[in-house]
């Protein structure tokens, strides 16, 4: 079923017209309500009158995570706090999180795009949808929740973790749809096996997986082990959360809800738009959001856009599975991790620049993070107890900032290889 056929199957001309109109409105609003946007536009000699259609998009300055940090927490909001009904947050590049605010209309729009996504995945109102994304500041849980309710399907708001309970409810409540990170799906498959539950006895039919990168090989593995169709959903909290785009049952790229999120692909070096179909960095302009509209927001995700009509009948532009990042962000168990966050923690414990290396591995189905920290003179104590305390302190600080567990290993000075250029801070051994 196509939830909003008028939009999802619009002609390119109709879509461009709608996008142009919404872009004009958005630019008016941000120019008049957000000083930092106005300053940036004035700096390049732009007024709202210069933006007439989507063809003028490339004239506008970019927005990055740094802008969000500089305006922390609410500086980029275009409405007073009395209009904001919800706040979510994700990792920033340093200690401060990235905060987004939603008006009531934003929440409705978000529910709409998630409902469309669920329909793309083949979910209908008779389904029982088990939402095993985390509920909370993370957008995964509540995003899927509102979309599922909007569709009229039954929600099991179980949140993440407690895998044996997840399986018990799958059996008892007859869940037909599971929403979680792809790595957690594999974890569920493993526990099913341990509990000797045959997936064929479950009603599970569809899985909607996102919040971390995963490969086609992983898709095949999940589909075989859980005996379901595995659908890729994409989103980032800055833009709205899950539902920015989603695959349809043909699994040939994620349809972008482009009547709300206007996509572009740029060369991350030159910042110029690439030729259609070329690989580059995905940039979004939100054209209906009220709380925190973002103009040409650099997602740092590398992908390409496909404008061909899809077999499902939708004309919404598709984006390929992301091919990587144009920055050093890692996604570990669905959590965004920046090496700079680790550095901030270590710097708080010593005045001297720390030498560290993050190693990400996949043990079984779950990702693990090991942090090697060189014990320089400033860290070194003659007492075992103090070194163990130091290790615990680093562990706890990082866990509280990142929200994921970390194995801290103290190593001798000069253990971590020095390269002439930029220090290598990350070794990602996962084969995604």
């Amino acid at each position, binding site marked *: 079923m196509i939830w909003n056929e008028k939009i999802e199957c619009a002609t390119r001309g109709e879509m461009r017209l709608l996008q142009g109109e919404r872009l004009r409105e958005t630019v008016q609003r941000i120019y008049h309500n957000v000083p930092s946007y106005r300053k940036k536009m004035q700096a390049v000699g732009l007024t709202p009158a210069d933006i007439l259609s989507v063809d003028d998009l490339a004239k506008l300055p970019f927005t990055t995570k740094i802008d969000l940090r500089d305006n922390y927490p609410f500086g980029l909001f275009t409405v007073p706090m009395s209009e904001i009904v919800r706040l979510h947050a994700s990792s920033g590049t340093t200690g401060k999180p990235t905060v987004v605010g939603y008006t009531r209309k934003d929440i409705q729009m978000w529910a709409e795009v998630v409902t469309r996504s669920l329909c793309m995945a083949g979910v209908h109102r008779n389904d029982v949808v088990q939402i095993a994304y985390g509920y909370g500041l993370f957008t995964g849980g509540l995003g899927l929740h509102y979309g599922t309710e909007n569709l009229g399907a039954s929600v099991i708001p179980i949140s993440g973790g407690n895998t044996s309970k997840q399986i018990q409810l799958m059996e008892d409540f007859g869940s037909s749809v599971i929403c979680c990170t792809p790595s957690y799906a594999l974890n569920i498959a493993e526990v099913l096996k341990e509990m000797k539950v045959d997936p064929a006895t479950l009603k599970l039919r569809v899985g909607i997986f996102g919040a971390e990168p995963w490969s086609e090989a992983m898709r095949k593995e999940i589909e075989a082990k859980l005996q379901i169709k595995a659908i890729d959903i994409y989103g980032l909290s800055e833009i709205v959360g899950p539902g920015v785009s989603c695959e349809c049952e043909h699994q040939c790229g994620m349809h972008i809800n482009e009547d709300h999120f206007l996509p572009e692909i740029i060369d991350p070096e030159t910042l110029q738009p690439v030729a259609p179909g070329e690989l580059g960095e995905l940039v979004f302009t939100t054209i209906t959001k009220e709380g925190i509209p973002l103009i040409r927001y650099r997602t740092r995700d590398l992908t390409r856009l496909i404008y061909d009509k899809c077999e499902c009948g939708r004309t919404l532009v598709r984006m390929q599975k992301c091919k990587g990042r144009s920055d050093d962000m890692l996604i570990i168990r669905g959590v965004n991790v920046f090496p700079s966050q680790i550095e901030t923690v270590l710097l708080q414990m010593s005045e001297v620049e720390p030498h560290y290396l993050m190693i990400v591995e996949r043990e079984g189905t779950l990702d693990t993070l090991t942090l090697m920290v060189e*014990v*320089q*003179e400033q*860290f*070194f*104590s*003659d*007492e*075992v107890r103090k*070194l*163990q305390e130091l*290790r615990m302190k680093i562990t706890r600080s990082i866990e509280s900032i990142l929200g994921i567990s970390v194995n801290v*290993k*103290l*190593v*001798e*000075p*000069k*253990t971590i290889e020095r390269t002439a250029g930029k220090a290598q801070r990350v070794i990602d051994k996962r084969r995604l």
Partner: protein
Amino acid sequence: MLIKQLSVFLENKSGRLNEVSNILGQAGINMSAFTVADTSEFGILRLLVADHEKAYKVLRENFFSVSLTDVVCLNCPNEPGALGKALQILSDNEVAIEYLYAYSVGESANVVIKPDNIGKCIKVLQEHQLELVKASDLYKI
């Protein structure tokens, strides 16, 4: 009465102790006492050497994390109950011991102590007429 002990951070991997002793050997530095505190993750090598400043320098040049720690060395008879007597005195006077290691040579034994309060430790032991080894004597062993 203060003795400078060298402490070296070591990862738990084979060959590291060997490397430290080779470096010191090549620099012509003799070790008179030596102990390793180990955990599952790492170890701390503690040693007494004749020329601690030189040892500190050469180990740092070889990228080891090194520190100098003040310890006390008690000389007591190599006979049953002798150590107990000294420890009882420290305990009675509320001097806590962070760690300790000992070695005996013939008639007497040397006990290296890292107390929480080194000044008080020395005072208490001296008040009880216990013999403390002077740095200059220790290195002759």
